[in-house]
Each structure stands twice: as structure tokens, then as C-alpha cells.
């Protein structure tokens, strides 16, 4: 079982999870900006 393996990026799984969530937040912010700027 390889549960203890480190991810190949960023050293810790928690950092990778944070990256995915931050990417989502940034995408939503950009899309919200697109929505409001073109009204």
C-alpha cells in the first residue's frame, strides 16, 4: 500500500489540494469578472 507516498509535486498532498481549490477560486473570479465586465 502506497498511502504514505509523497506527491510528485509540491511535496505534500495538502498543498496539491490547496492548489486545486485555489485554481477553482481563481477561475470563478475570472469568470465573474468576465460576466460583469461585458454587461
Amino acid at each position, binding site marked *: *500500500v*502506497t*498511502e*504514505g*507516498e*509523497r*506527491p*510528485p509535486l509540491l*511535496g*505534500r*498532498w*495538502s*498543498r*496539491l*489540494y490547496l*492548489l*486545486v*481549490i485555489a*485554481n*477553482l477560486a481563481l*477561475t*470563478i473570479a475570472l*469568470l*465573474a469578472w*468576465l*460576466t460583469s*465586465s*461585458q*454587461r
Partner: protein
Amino acid sequence: VSPLDWSVLIGALALFVAYGLWRGRGGHGLDGYVLADRAMPWPMVALSVMATQASATTFLATPGQAYVDGLRFVQFYFGLPLAMVVLCMTAVPIFHRLKVYTAYEYLERRFDSRTRTLAALLFLIQRGLQAGITIYAPALILSVLLGWQLHLTCLLLGGIVVLYTASGGAKAVGHSHALQFLIIMGAMAVAFALTVTRMPRGVGFGDAVSLAGHLGKLNAVDTHFDLTNRYNLWSGLIGGFFLQMSYFGADQSQVGRYLAGSSVTQSRMGLLFNGLVKVPMQFLILFLGVMVFTFHQFAPPVLWADPVEAAKLERHAPVEWRVLETRWADATARRASAARLRIDARHRHDAPALAVAEAALGRAVQEANAVRKDCVALIRTRDPAANPSDTNYLFLGFVLGHLPAGIIGLVLAAIFAAAMNSISSELNALSSTTIVDVVRRLPGRPVSAAREVAASRIATCLWAAFAVAFAEFASRLGSLVEAVNILGSLFYGTILGIFLTAFYCRGVGGRAVFLAALVAEAAVIACYAFTRLSFLWYNVVGCVLVLGLALALQPLIGTKEPAEPGPARRPRASGA
């Protein structure tokens, strides 16, 4: 469709089948046939997961949806990255640790065989019917636009997929996904570039975006909370999260993809990559639809993109049809000229001229919309059972009418590939669940691995035959298609609730969760029958009810501690 397009299409289909057969060759045990020997690196897991989710309908209907409704459908995917993170923390290490073949196998170890059987049967019913629709939807559109018989396109789609899926199992499916998904992405990128470069002279990318925004097509985020509104930020984040959790955590067609990863790390990386790129990818597919919409502001499209329905109107109501066509030509000509005036005014920074052009554009768009509305009314009057929407035909109609020879064949190949991707995952998952969760548990002597693989191949062929037969049947029962699509949302929440109870409520036993699942399912069906709640919320209702009821019932009717603990009892994964 030119001879060059046919060559590209036939060549691509032959390549897909040959590649699938080649990668799936060699002897298999059940591990190889069901989970590709659990040897896939994460890029393959990521491509396979994404290819499974993106069916032909994604590439046919999504640009059409954006054409009609703007970008707001992108919010449907907002819950997906969150679901990927939660699944990486829970389901992935548990499934890997227990070395299960299917997600439902875990339920027996955690609860009892009754709960496993319930979840597996719900999956087989729902996914078996969905597989028919996965074949039917693109087969119908392709048959209409290419002028082929529907049963021929159904048979062709089902037949070419079953060739390599039955022989090579998960290995063939996974490798084919990678090749086909890269071709699909390439074709969509080429279609996007050509759409933008084919705008009329003097209309740049910025002008096209500005015009789309002015006409309300860049409505990507709606922060208004409304339970009856299908797509807004909150339904996407909350309802979408539960839907994606159910799909990726409890649907074997996805679980089988990431369990093929060679380790927990490879499976997690595949899912997290999906979490990173899925929303931007869906945005770009929708944005392609918006660009096609803008293109058609200058080069007016046909009044009704579904050629079969248009031909029926022309034949059965020729006078009304001619009047509508004349009105449509007039309104779209005025719309094109007003759109051009708006762009010129924008270039000159001439505010008064811009206001005049926008007023004229508004009137022309209103008139064009009124003509389309009258066309829908005419369709409904003539045949109340007819499909009053041409959304699914808009993008392929544009491709066939405006893209160069060769590229049309490439886009058609991409659409076939997308259909094949989803169908192959579904057939592989249906066959795995049938063998592992049903046939293997039947009383009798244990059989050899070779016989189990042979039985899996037969099950794949039988499910393919069922899916093609159901696709043909569905063509005669239009409303059934919608009913089958709703069926997924009716069961997903309950199945997810069972899994979340298994993962997080370690004191809850099989009897409590089984009863909770039955009550929750009845409540979800009641929501569907008696309320106007949007379908994404069914997943929340089903899941929360199972969790809440199981916790409440456990002290009253519960049995002793479960046999196989959830993640709370394991040592924490490093850094997770």
C-alpha cells in the same frame, strides 16, 4: 461531406479500433480485464477519467447550449474540483488499500452483502439504460445530419466499441481513451481557431467577444441563489459537488478508471489533474459555441438547424414556413447590418453612433427571436411530440456548413471518438459489476481466472447488445430519453449517501444504512413528483437524508460495529 472528409473519418475509426485491439492484446486475468492490471500512470488515468465524462453530447450539445443560453452552463462543473479533493482524501486510499475491483465490493466489507447488492443493482439499472442513451443521442444527430438510417449509426457506434472493449477490457479502454481524447482536444482547438479566423473582415476577436457580451452570452457566473434555477454559482458548487462526488465516487464507470492507477499516488494525481483542467476545458467548449453564435450574427444561419424537422415543416406547412423564412431573412439581415454598425462605432469610440447601433441591434435580435418562437409554435402545432429544440444540431450544422474539407472529417471523427470513449467505459463497468458483484457471488464451485475473463467478455457483448437495442427503442419513445436522464439524478444522491456513511460514520452498521437508503430514495422520488426543485439538488437531498437517517436509526435498530472501518481508524496518510 467530401471524399477527403470520409477518408479522414474512416481512417480515424480504423485507427481507434486497431489501436484498442493492439493495446488490449495478450492474456488477461480478471485484474487485467477489469482494472488494466492496476498499472496505469497518472497521465493515462487523467485522460481516461476525462474521456469517460466527456461524451459525444458534450461536444455536440455544449456549444449549442452556449449558442442559445450563453456561458452559464459552466457553473454546473464548479463542484467537480472540490469533489476530486475529497475523493482523493477518502475513497482513493480506501479502495486501493482493500484492493477491490468495484466500488460496491467495498460496501459488503464495510456493511453487509444486502447493501452491496442494492448499490450494484441500482448502478446496473441506471447505467445500463444510460448506455443506451449514450449511443442513441449522438447516433440520432449523426443520422440526421449525415442522412443515414438511425439503426445503422446505433449499430456502428455500438459495434466498433464492442470490438476492442470486449477483447481487451480495461487495458484497451484506458489506452484508447488517451489517444481519442487527445484527438478530440486537437479537433476542438482547430474548430475554435477556424471559427475565430472566419469572422468577416474587420471583425476581430475583441469585437466578437464584445458583441457576444452585449448580446448576453458571457453570463458565466450568476450569484443569485434560487433553488429552481438549474445553473447558478450555488447550485453548481453545492449540488454539483454532490453530483460529482456520486459520479466519481460511486459510479463504477469512473471508479474503474482511477482504480487502474498503479498506486494511490497515480490515481490521486489523475483525479487532481482532472480537478485542475475540467472547468477551464468546459469553459473553452462553451466559448466555442459563443464564437459560433457571434459568427452567425454576420453570416445568418438557417431558420431551424434540425434538417428533418425543417423538411417536415416545409412539406406539411409550406405557406407558414415560407412566411417564417422571409421574416427570418429580413430580421437576420437587419441584425447583421446593425452588428456591423456597432463594431464600426466601437472602433471610432463614437458613443452616440454606438447607442443608435445597439438600439437597432436590439430590435433586430428581438424580431429574430420572435421568428424562432413562432417556428417552435408551428412545430408544436403540427406535431406535439416533436422536439421543439434544435440546440444539438447548431454546432455540427456550423461545422458542416462553414469549415473546410478535411476538418469536417476530423470533427466528425472527434465526435465518434467522444461517443466511443463514454460507451467503452460504461460497457467495461457494466461487465465488471455484473461479474464481480453478481456472477461471482452466485453459489457454486469457484471458476478459473480464464473462465471469469471469458464470462466478462460475454457480459460486455450482452450489455452492448442491450444498449444498442435500447437506443433503437428510445428512438420511438422521445419522452423516455428525458426520463432516463432524470433517473441518474434520482439514484445518485442515495448511493453517495451510502458511501459517505461508510467512509465517515464508523459507528453505523448495515441495517441502519439500508433502511435509511430506502427512506431517502422514497423522499427523492417524492421531490421529483411533487416539487419544482431543480434536479441537481436531488443529489443533496438523497445524500443528506441517508447520512442523517442512518445516524438517527443506528442507536434504535443498529447492529454491532462494522467489520471494515472507514478512514478515521487508519493512520493518516502523509501530508493528506
